[in-house]
């Protein structure tokens, strides 16, 4: 009895020491890791707003805008949205930049594994040119021949437009 108590206490003591060590390491590394993560996340937005833009994360109601993942205020009055929606056979993740007057100022897909030649065309320059400068609060055009994928993106963009109209404007 006495021996098992000693063993348990010994092991507990080792765990306390290890926990202290872990807490110390976490204190040192956590801020650096958080900074790295934010930087990596914002790096994809640099494509739209140029390098050196400052991003401030905007909190929003995930239940109202289920396909929107992240919203950042980019610089003074531009907004950056990251959204994911299921296309034809895969999730399409894209980022879209909205300028101060509510027009689309940039669009890029980060992940898209839909059919090459069809749904994958949503990731092409052709589609970017099609929706560039359009009002985000109105429905954007879809791509003929890539109906399912571009309809999906369209509906996610409409959600972004809704958020922009309701919360930003």
């Amino acid at each position, binding site marked *: 009895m006495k021996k098992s108590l*000693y*063993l348990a206490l*010994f*092991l507990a003591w*080792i*765990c306390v020491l*290890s*926990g202290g*060590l*872990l807490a110390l*390491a*976490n204190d*040192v*590394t*956590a801020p*650096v*890791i958080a900074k*790295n993560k934010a930087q*990596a996340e914002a790096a994809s937005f640099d494509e739209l707003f140029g390098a050196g833009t400052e991003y401030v994360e905007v909190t929003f109601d995930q239940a109202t805008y289920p396909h929107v993942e992240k919203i950042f205020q980019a610089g003074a009055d531009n907004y950056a949205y990251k959204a994911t929606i299921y296309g034809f056979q895969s999730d399409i993740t894209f980022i879209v930049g909205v300028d101060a007057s509510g027009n689309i100022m940039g669009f890029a897909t980060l992940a898209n594994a839909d059919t090459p030649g069809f749904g994958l065309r949503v990731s092409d320059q052709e589609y970017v040119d099609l929706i560039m400068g359009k009002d985000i609060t109105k429905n954007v055009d879809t791509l003929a021949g890539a109906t399912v994928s571009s309809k999906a993106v369209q509906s996610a963009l409409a959600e972004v437009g809704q958020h922009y109209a309701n919360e930003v404007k």
Partner: protein
Amino acid sequence: MNRWKNFTSGFVRENPVFGLYLGICSVLAVSTTINNALGMGVCVIITLLLSNVIISVMRDIVPNDIRIPVYIVIIASLVTVVEMLVNAFSPALAESLGTFISLIVVNCIILGRAEAFASKNGVVDSILDALGMGLGYTVSLLAMALIRQVIGTGVLEFTNPFDASQIIFSFTIIPSDFTVSLFSSAPGAFLTFGILAGLLAMYNGKKQEKAEAEAKAAKAAAAKAAAEAKLKEAK
């Protein structure tokens, strides 16, 4: 001499990977590029060194009944610390090694050396053992990665682990039409591993044969000398 032997045994005679077949899971998985191999090797060396030192220092106070749980707590904590450090200071390496950093916890080399060596030997010897075994593991991993990266991609490339955009060297060795991409995937890992392990076994076997032959010759010479002495005596 004995210490030197203890240090070098991890390289060839008791090579943890190709000789003892320890820690193969991570070796097969991360030996795709020399970047990954070196990064993994350094993580294992740091963990092994710290765990060997701590366990060797504590060897007299750890009750025998709970030594394994104690070792596991220590090793798991050390690996977590290493993982945090890699995540913080080399995000590129953390991304390419992924879960295999945390899986160092179950790398048999660490617990194996703790149980077989550090818990029975002094701190200096344990440090040498950790360095020898760790370097043996790293060299094995690098050998596999070198073969797989060159045959699989045709390009031997090494980037700065603290800044992924900075390429330290990059040679194209095989034109891209003649690479065998099989070597970049899992079957290539098994093939490379088998060949290297076989070569090491052959080398060790030859060495042993030689030693046996030498011992036999020495024995025969001794017997001959004894017989001659006997003959002389009889005369």
